């Protein structure tokens, strides 16, 4: 028989999944808006951020209640503690999406920079990591989570390449400095998203295996 506590825990998981879906959509939409230079789409991301913030508050509330009233143990305890951390990472992913969307507001009203395929690769790689991390959480799959952690180095390399390309470009195109700096910020947001995906994957590993793999520790 499922207990009242486990029904409440399932509710918490559903709230986290809902928040994950909205944060993922925010980042996917922000990247689309950036490449399509679509200011309306960017505005949509900014508008929707409030809902994600409210879900974070709701997750804090639900988690605190379960910790206080039910004194969870073992995997249930790990789920709630890690869930609180995952909610923080998801909220920051959404903030990165808002940050990208704010750059789109600026860039959309100015002439486009030349297309950089590395930027597209960076966006794709960080979104892949985010989707895989969320899938690992939904399925409670530690193997998927470990895969996410191995992908972060590639994203860091792509970010450095974008930075180099844009610095080279700015040296020759002084009028494009402001647009280039804004684009560097966008790349940085994508790279940060991959870092949050790594954090989420580490939290999933903690839930499933009871192992803390943050900062290469394994206790």
């Amino acid at each position, binding site marked *: *028989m499922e*207990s009242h*506590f*486990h029904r409440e825990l399932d509710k918490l998981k559903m709230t986290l999944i809902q928040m994950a879906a909205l944060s993922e959509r925010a980042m996917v939409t922000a990247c689309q808006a950036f490449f399509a230079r679509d200011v309306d789409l960017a505005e949509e991301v900014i508008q929707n951020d409030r809902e994600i913030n409210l879900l974070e508050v709701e997750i804090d509330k639900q988690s605190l209640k379960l910790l206080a009233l039910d*004194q*969870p*143990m*073992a*995997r*249930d*305890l*790990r789920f709630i503690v890690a869930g609180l951390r995952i909610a923080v990472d998801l909220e920051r992913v959404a903030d990165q999406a808002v940050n990208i969307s704010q750059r789109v507001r600026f860039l959309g009203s100015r002439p486009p920079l030349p297309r950089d395929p590395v930027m597209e690769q960076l966006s794709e790689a960080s979104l892949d990591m985010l989707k895989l991390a969320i899938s690992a959480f939904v399925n409670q799959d530690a193997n998927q989570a470990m895969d996410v952690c191995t992908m972060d180095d590639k994203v860091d390399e792509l970010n450095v390449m974008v930075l180099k390309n844009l610095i080279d470009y700015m040296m020759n195109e002084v009028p494009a400095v402001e647009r280039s700096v804004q684009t560097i910020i966008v790349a940085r947001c994508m790279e940060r998203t991959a870092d949050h995906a790594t954090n989420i994957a580490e939290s999933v590993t903690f839930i499933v295996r*009871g192992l803390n793999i943050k900062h290469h520790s394994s206790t």
Partner: protein
Amino acid sequence: MTASVKMTARNLDFYYGDFKALQDISLDVVENQVTALIGPSGCGKSTFLRCLNRMNDLIPTSRVVGDVLLDNRNIYDPSEDVVSIRRRVGMVFQKPNPFPKTIFENVAYGLRINGSRDKGFIAETVERSLKQAALWDEVKDRLDATALGLSGGQQQRLCIARALAVQPEVVLMDEPASALDPIATQKIEELIHLLKKSYTIVIVTHNMQQAARVSDVTAFFYMGKLVEVDSTETLFTRPQNQQTEDYITGRFG
């Protein structure tokens, strides 16, 4: 300081008639630590506790196979004196069971039946035991009053004082706070933290949060078997066995 083993159960089986209540239990009890025994009703945890000071000897048709070592000597060896074992391994029960005597006489009882006649020694021991049981300040002005007038929580601490008076090495506690309110329970739990500096404690509890709060090591019993034993922190945060996980997360049955 290296932790040393005070008691050891080695391949212990226990029978009530034909019923095998404990199967092949091997467990070390470390000196100056609190070892908690948890598990569902009927899992054998109280039976195991009572094996540690031969309290089960009192049950007709019961039978023990295997060894229980106290400082490396088998307490079931025919040459061992059961009274001496029970003095070294004291016990506190679920319900406070003071004798219908004064507070002083309750604590002095064990000393008197052990042959002590020295009034000064008895008075000192009563005071020290009541202080160790965190009861002295509440009863020092009415030591001649009947123990039955104390509250439930005070009575239980009196029983702990009575157990401590004969200077045991190990104290067994069978759900010592289950009949008490939260404040009295908290006092008993604080007391357990203090007592482990001087004694080795084994506690049976149905309350998992209590096991988590007071113990250093927790052992999970199920259907007469020891399923898992580990440091309390590990057992309650990442148990290795699925049955343990299911039990402590309330997914049992």
